[in-house]
């Protein structure tokens, strides 16, 4: 698991994050496969530097991390960039003055430390599993399997309770997303516009109640509101109130000044 290719590495300008095809060409992408993710790379860096996870010198490690992902090539490494930005943010937080009293200061590294410890444990289990699988792999099960007997098909077990439990799972699993309830546009803004224009041809001004009609549905209300706003925007109508909380008046002409 060497991080760094022959010759090049540590001097590469580390703070820029552009993807360098040059890195890919020199075979570092293959090296990226040596790590299963940004946490893995981070753990590797800490191990190399013999750093205690509980007390990470964030500034130094952040720089090294950036350097490493730059050298390794970032073509398919969105996850690494995500971690890099977290580290940079942490680095900035660590630079902030802690204030005089250190008591209620919460170490910004705590979350990262927790994740690293947790991940380290997963890696330990994974190693144990690899060992177990290896020990198991050298015990062959029977290679030759006699052809299954011709007729009696296996007795299936199926009972109603199992089926009903499955029904419940299916129902529970059916997505009732808000998405599906957003329906095709039922508003009739054009119709409302025509209606208001017709009313305004007959009369100089109408009230809001007249505009929405005698038994409006919520859709009528919304359609009319949108129609009025649109008319007002185009200068086809004027909307005003005589006073605060007064009735809204929709008018053909601009309101005369309130003299």
């Amino acid at each position, binding site marked *: 698991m060497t991080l760094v290719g022959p010759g090049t590495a540590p001097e590469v300008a580390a703070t820029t994050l552009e993807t360098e095809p040059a890195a890919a060409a020199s075979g570092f992408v293959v090296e990226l496969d040596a790590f299963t993710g940004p946490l893995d790379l981070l753990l590797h860096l800490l191990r190399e530097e013999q750093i205690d996870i509980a007390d990470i010198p964030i500034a130094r490690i952040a720089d090294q991390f950036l350097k490493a992902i730059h050298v390794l090539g970032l073509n398919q490494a969105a996850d690494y960039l995500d971690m890099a930005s977290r580290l940079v943010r942490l680095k900035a937080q660590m630079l902030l003055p802690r204030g005089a009293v250190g008591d209620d200061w919460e170490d910004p590294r705590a979350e990262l430390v927790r994740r690293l410890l947790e991940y380290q444990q997963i890696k330990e289990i994974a190693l144990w599993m690899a060992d177990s699988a290896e020990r198991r792999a050298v015990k*062959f*099960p*029977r*290679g*030759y*399997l*006699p052809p*299954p*007997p011709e007729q*009696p*098909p*296996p*007795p*299936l*077990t*199926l*009972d*109603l309770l*199992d*089926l*009903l*439990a*499955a*029904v419940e*799972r*299916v*129902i529970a*699993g*059916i*997505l*009732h997303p*808000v998405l*599906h*309830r*957003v*329906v*095709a*546009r*039922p*508003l009739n803004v054009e119709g409302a516009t025509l209606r208001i224009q017709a009313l305004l041809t007959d009369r100089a001004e109408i009230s809001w109640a007249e505009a929405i009609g005698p038994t409006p*549905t*919520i*859709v009528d209300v*919304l359609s009319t509101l949108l129609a009025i706003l649109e008319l007002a925007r185009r200068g086809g109508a004027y909307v005003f109130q005589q006073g605060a909380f007064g009735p809204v008046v929709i008018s053909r002409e601009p309101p005369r000044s309130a003299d």
Partner: protein
Amino acid sequence: MNPLVQLIEAALFAAPRPVTVEELQMLDPDVSLAEVRQALDQLREHYDFDGHGVEVTEMAGGFQIVSRPAFAAAIERAQLNTKPARLSAAMLETLATIAYRQPVGRAEIEEIRGVSAAGVLRTLQERGLIEVVGRSEALGRPLLYGTTPLFLELLGLPDLTNLPRAEELSIALQPVKAQDDRDADSAAAYVEAES
């Protein structure tokens, strides 16, 4: 058993096909064909003498260890060499969907369950629990599935009307359709989606 006999036993056991004496010889470069034959005889005698449930037989030009025929009937009865007969959760859920929605096409099943159903449908068909009952009029005329008499038989039901009716089941299993929208909820959803 001496080491060569053990090795040959392990190899015959692990090999997926009858193994020839020549192949067995490749297990150990220091061993002659005659020694392999001798070891095979010893293994065979050991099985016979100790009264094992298995024996060495010669078949298709090679050797194999097989269960003794005397036990075949019991093993078949216990169905040990067939797949486990319990339905998986995925199979049960697909079966439930078909039972309550039949005749129903694969696309609809997948929409309801949110996962691909091709493999599960094939397995359920092989197990004889569902069958193709027709074709939809929809584009591509997809196959429609329904449950079989075996399905009812396994549940011990005389016919499909005996499936528990629970109204909410049939409602919940309706495909989500555009609802009539003369209510505040939907209008609110509309405004939210627009913004």
